[in-house]
């Protein structure tokens, strides 16, 4: 039977234009990698957005797998700008194989 270990999965919804800032924060904390998924529309307290790629005001979802400590550190480094930059951060525990990589 295969052995899995527990790591944190963190997903940050972020403006296209601010994506680099989030991935830079991930790099700084020392997490090994990240992956960006496209997002097509949404609604929040600021209202609805959609079809905004031409205007460059669309969003991305940045996903990263990290150890508990790194995840905690990342959350802390992003916390100050969550509200001002309109980020949406969720995290939860996941099982991974080859845990030494994260």
């Amino acid at each position, binding site marked *: 039977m295969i052995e899995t270990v527990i790591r944190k999965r963190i997903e940050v919804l972020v403006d296209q234009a601010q994506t680099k800032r989030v991935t830079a924060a991930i790099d700084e904390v020392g997490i090994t990698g990240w992956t960006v998924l496209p997002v097509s529309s949404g609604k929040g307290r600021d*209202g609805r957005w959609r079809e905004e790629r031409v205007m460059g005001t669309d969003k991305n979802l940045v996903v990263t797998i990290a150890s508990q400590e790194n995840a905690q550190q990342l959350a802390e480094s992003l916390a100050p700008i969550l509200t001002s930059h309109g980020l949406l951060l969720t995290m939860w525990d996941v099982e991974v194989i080859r845990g030494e990589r994260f």
Partner: protein
Amino acid sequence: MDSVGLQALTSPVVLFFVLGLLAALAKSDLEIPEAFAKAMSLYLMAAIGLKGGIEVAESGLDATVLAALAAGITAGFIMPLYAFWLLKGFGKLDRINAGAVAAHYGSISVVTFVTAVEIFEIQGNPPQGYMVAVMATMESPAILAGLLLARGGGSGGGQSTKELLHEVLFNASVVLLLGAFAIGWIAGPSGFADVEPFFGAMFKGVLCLFLLDMGLIAARRMMDSRSLTWRLVAIAIGLPLVNGAIGTALGVVIGLDTGSAAVLGVLCASASYIAVPAAMRLALPEADPGIYLTMSLSITFPFNVLINIGLIGAFAAMLTGGGAAVP
């Protein structure tokens, strides 16, 4: 409206925009894929840059061109100032949102420019090719001005001045417009011949589809809007009227021909909805796109395309005494 004005409004370019507005108002699910819409916007910028460069390669540069460039840049710095004052006072916006909106109105809209050129050509008043360069240089000054106003001279929301200047000078629209302009200038008319079917002949057709999409997006955003007040709507219509008149008069004063003066007016009247929103998202994430994008895209843009370009053209013709040549 005279027959030339009517002819402008019945050009396919304007009609496709109206179709987009109507389809969205009727809640149709018509939608242009975003990747394709983005590609069209890049195509339009490359084509307009190229053509401007080629015309300059043919006509050369002279003092009038320099005057037009200087006028455009100056307007780009000054317009945000009174817009900011108006938006904070009459419009009741906070400093950050007022600065962001001011940046949009001080900058320019490439598609409004292109539509105006179409219409002025139909009316027999084609502007000079160097107005493309004027347009390109007018994109950035207002971004700078707006950001400085929004931050009140403060250190700014986490972005260094260096990053800021980089964004102002190397944002995608500026690079593509000026880059294509340079290519057109270097390659000249002979180099252009080979790519004319793509960048020249196809241009108006692509513009139709792009305006269809902009009509859809503008009307949908309008209907979804929560942040618009009547005060902001009034500004989104009043500012282009005032800026258009000032810009046109400025153009006449510095000696531009009817079409070019009218185009300077349109540039001043237009509000950016491609380059500046992207820049604000980067440099001023606290500002609300529900305000700046809805004002520039959903109110000012249709107002300019459907009404204000016609008014500006007539005003320029009046000032220069050069009436539209009725075909």
